[in-house]
């Protein structure tokens, strides 16, 4: 029986349209912690079963969220270890709580570290273009602005959910110069751009980046115009599954986000497709900014191998 707190957070993810993988992960961990603390399990076996159900539900709904999967794996490893040493329900509850908090902190610290490292890459007066909503990118830009580098940002509106407006708002609130454009205008403004800076939903073992639909196009346009493309991603975005040949599943979202509820939908041969993400190949990425430093996409495999809980053998 999946706990109501977990059900609620998944609903929130859908309805309130949480922005970005990091935000989603925070929310999921919070729900998992709360569900564990409220558990009425009388045996550790029962607790583990409940816990497993909550985790599976979260994984099923946001299968594409790598940081979420990594965070759940992180907590799962701690819980299983404690259970195998005969821990009681109370101890297991504490483990879930502490482990989840620990991961949360690691995630927050990683964003702060990425901001520091990434801001160093920004030169004074740089014009930077970004796409979709990324906590890491916003942190980098705020840091650079704090350092008086005065970056100016082209923010793509990012159809269909228009999260670019949230990015614009957050940056403008800090006094950062922002220009809002449509996604299709990237080509038109690329010659006025010094760097493209994007986040990542996931990084594959070969250095390819999964990010909001449109990212692959922007990266291609930038490459052609010889504009550098930087991806900002904490190591928790790196996907161990891809090391074993698993393809990252691209989620198709509700088509009504694209067209709404139009009469056209009733026509039998009329379709609307709404893939939420696309894959940007490593050759279109110049470097990835992680909390452990800047790496070329080709070095992603090294990070992926170290993910906790994944056995290479």
């Amino acid at each position: 029986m999946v706990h109501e707190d977990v059900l609620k957070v998944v609903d929130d993810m859908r309805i309130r349209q949480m922005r970005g993988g990091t935000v989603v992960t925070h929310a999921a961990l919070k729900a998992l912690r709360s569900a564990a603390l409220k558990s009425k399990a009388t045996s550790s076996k029962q607790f583990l079963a409940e816990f497993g159900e909550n985790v599976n539900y979260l994984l099923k709904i946001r299968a594409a969220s790598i940081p979420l999967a990594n965070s759940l794996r992180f907590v799962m490893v701690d819980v299983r270890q404690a259970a195998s040493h005969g821990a009681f329900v109370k101890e297991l509850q504490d483990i879930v709580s502490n482990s989840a908090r620990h991961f949360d902190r690691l995630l927050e610290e990683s964003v702060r570290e990425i901001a520091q490292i990434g801001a160093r890459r920004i030169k004074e007066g740089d014009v930077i273009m970004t796409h979709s909503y990324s906590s890491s990118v916003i942190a980098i830009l705020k840091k650079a602005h704090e350092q008086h580098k005065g970056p100016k940002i082209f923010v793509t509106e990012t159809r269909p959910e228009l999260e670019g407006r949230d990015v614009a708002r957050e940056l403008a609130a800090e006094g950062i110069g922002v220009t809002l454009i449509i996604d299709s205008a990237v080509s038109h403004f690329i010659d006025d751009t010094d760097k493209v800076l994007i986040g990542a939903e996931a990084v594959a073992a070969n250095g390819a980046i999964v990010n909001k639909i449109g990212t692959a196009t922007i990266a291609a346009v930038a490459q052609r115009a010889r504009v550098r493309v930087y991806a900002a991603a904490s190591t928790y975005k790196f996907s161990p599954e891809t090391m074993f040949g698993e393809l990252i599943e691209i989620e198709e979202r509700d088509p009504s986000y694209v067209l709404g509820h139009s009469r056209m939908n009733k026509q039998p041969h009329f379709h609307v497709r709404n893939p939420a993400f696309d894959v940007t190949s490593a050759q279109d990425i110049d470097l990835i900014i992680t909390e452990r430093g800047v790496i070329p996409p080709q070095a992603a495999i090294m990070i992926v191998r170290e993910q906790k809980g994944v056995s290479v053998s």
Partner: protein
Amino acid sequence: MRVRGAGLIASSAVTALKIAAQKSPAEDPGSFMRDLSDAARVLLETRPTAVSLPNGIRYVMHRVNRAKANATSGADLKLVASKAADEFVELTRTAVERIGEIGAKRIRDGVVVLTHCNSTAAISVMTTAWRQGKKFEVYATETRPRFQGRLTARVLARLGIPVTLILDDAVRYFMQDVDMVLVGADAITANGALVNKVGTSMVALAAHEVHVNVNVAAESYKFSPETMIGELVEIEERDPSEIISAKALSQIGRRVKVRNPSFDLTPPEFVDAIITERGIIPPLGAMLILQEVFGVLTPEELTEYQTYKLSEA
């Protein structure tokens, strides 16, 4: 509708020029030329719009200028002016249909066509092919900011053509399933570059990367002679409210800028074929069309008509 408007506006202007010619009381060629040139200048100033209007005026004036040397009276030139005007109006009436017939030959059974924005000429190609009994399907980009792609989708779906509506951002994602790209044109420059709805150059780049042909349906009066002497086509920026309402913008930040270029430039190397009513040419053949329709224009003739700003009708 913009594209239909382009032909209509041009033919209206040319008809007005014809009326001015017929009404001119001048009896000698010199005075007639003055009257006609004055009328031409007024018409050119009324409404900066698609290239078709200046082209229509130019079509008539060029032929009258050529006849000037041999004319013995104003009446001779009046006749030339009327005849040229009639020819041009007829051209605007039949060009789109003719392009449909020629272009339909390029659509084979079973192909997947991707189109952008709402072009009468491009739609003519697809509807003609469909009426000929060819079976194919179409991906139509929604085309921000005004979602003109939805109009295209509706027109095609009504005929029974299978249509899938996608985000502009998703072109790279779907390009692997596409066999040919088919778009219209706001203007073709002398070196074969394409000026078309913003986002077109990104569609063309995505197509180019996976070796998908880019076909452009363009009436001969879309070809822009200005670029023969190095004039750049100035790209219009439209009201930001097309992208975001004033209210929503104020909620994001008072100093957030919005930029809304309506067109972008696709270089000739990303264009594979241009379908005109006179036949199919490669982009580098743009000069042929320009010469055929306008003859060898002198720099003086060109500068007389000034650089105009390309804007949506």
